[in-house]
C-alpha cells in the first residue's frame, strides 16, 4: 500500500510520462498540453476577431479530453493517494523558503503563501498568480510549446528548435527563482 501513498520515484514517473506520450503518438496524436489554452480561447469565438484563433478547435477536442482526464486523475491522486510523507524536499530548500516567509510542505503540494484560500483577500497574491499565468500562456504560445511539447516530445524526437526552447525555459526559471522571487517575497 505504501507504493500508492508515497512519492513515486523519478524513474517510475519519468517512464510512465514517456509511455503516456508514446500512447498518444500511437493514437495518431501528439503530446502537448499548452495547445489546449489556444483551443479554449478559440471556443469562445475569438477566431472571428483574431486570425490566430480561427482554426478548427474541434480537431483538437481529443486533447481537451486528455486534460479532462488529467483533472480527474489529479483529484483522485490528491484525495485518495496522498499522505504526510509527500513532498519531502531538500531541508536546505525548506530553510531557503523560510527566509522568504514561505511555509514548509509538510505533505502539501502547494505553499499556503501562494495557494492558500486566504490569498483571495490579497490583491498582491492574486496579481502574482495572474501575472504568472500570463507569462505561461504568452510564453508557451510564442515558443509554440511547453514542458510536454518541447522538453519531452520535442527532445525525444531530437528537434533542435525544442532544445532552444528548453534552454529558454531554464534561463527564465533561474532568473525568476534566484533574482525575482526574493524581491517579491
Amino acid at each position, binding site marked *: 500500500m505504501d507504493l500508492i501513498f508515497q512519492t513515486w520515484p523519478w524513474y517510475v514517473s519519468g517512464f*510512465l510520462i514517456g*509511455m503516456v506520450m508514446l500512447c498518444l*503518438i500511437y493514437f495518431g496524436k501528439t503530446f502537448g498540453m499548452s495547445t489546449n489554452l489556444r483551443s479554449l480561447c478559440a471556443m469562445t469565438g475569438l477566431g472571428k476577431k483574431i486570425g490566430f484563433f480561427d482554426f478548427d478547435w474541434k480537431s483538437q477536442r481529443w486533447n481537451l479530453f486528455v486534460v479532462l482526464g488529467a483533472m480527474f486523475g*489529479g483529484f483522485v491522486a490528491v484525495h485518495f493517494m496522498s499522505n504526510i510523507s509527500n513532498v519531502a524536499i531538500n531541508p536546505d530548500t525548506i530553510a531557503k523558503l523560510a527566509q522568504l516567509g514561505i511555509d514548509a510542505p509538510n505533505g502539501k503540494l502547494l505553499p499556503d503563501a501562494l495557494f492558500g484560500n486566504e490569498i483571495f483577500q490579497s490583491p498582491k497574491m492574486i496579481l502574482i498568480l495572474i501575472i504568472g499565468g500570463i507569462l505561461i500562456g504568452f510564453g508557451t504560445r*510564442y515558443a*509554440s510549446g511547453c514542458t510536454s511539447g518541447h522538453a*519531452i516530445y520535442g*527532445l525525444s524526437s531530437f528537434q533542435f528548435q525544442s532544445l532552444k526552447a528548453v534552454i*529558454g525555459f531554464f534561463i527564465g526559471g533561474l532568473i525568476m527563482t534566484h533574482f525575482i522571487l526574493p524581491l517579491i517575497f
Partner: protein
Amino acid sequence: MKALKYIFIGFIFGIVLTKSEAVSWYRIYEMFQFQSFHMYGIIMVAIVTGVIGIQIIKWKHLKDIKGLPIEIIAKEPGSTRFWVGGIFFGLGWALVGACPGPIFILLGAGFLPVIMVLFGALFGTFLYGAFKEKLPH
C-alpha cells in the same frame, strides 16, 4: 467511446504528475535551486523512454491505431520565438510552479486559487494571438 481512451490516458497522466509531485510548486523551486535530482530524473527518464519508443517506431515503420504511418510533427522554423517565448514561459513556470498540464491537474484536485493562473494563462494566450504579427519569430 473515442473520447474514453483520451480521458483514460489523461487520467493516468494526472495521477503520475501528481504522485511524482511534478505539479508541486515546491518541486519546481527545488529544481531551479539545483537542490534535488528528482525533477531532472523525471524529465530525463521521460525523454529516454520517448527516444527509445520513437526510434522503435521509425525502425519498425510501426502504424498508428488506424493503420496509418506514424509521423512526428516538426516544430516551426525560427529561433527568436523559441528563446524569447521559452524565457517568458520559464519565468512564469518558476513563479507559480505550474506548467499548462499541472494548471488543469491542480484545479481538478481542488486547489481553487489556481483558477487565477488559468485566467492569466488564457489571457496570455489571447495576447500572443493578438500581437502575433508584430512579434519577431
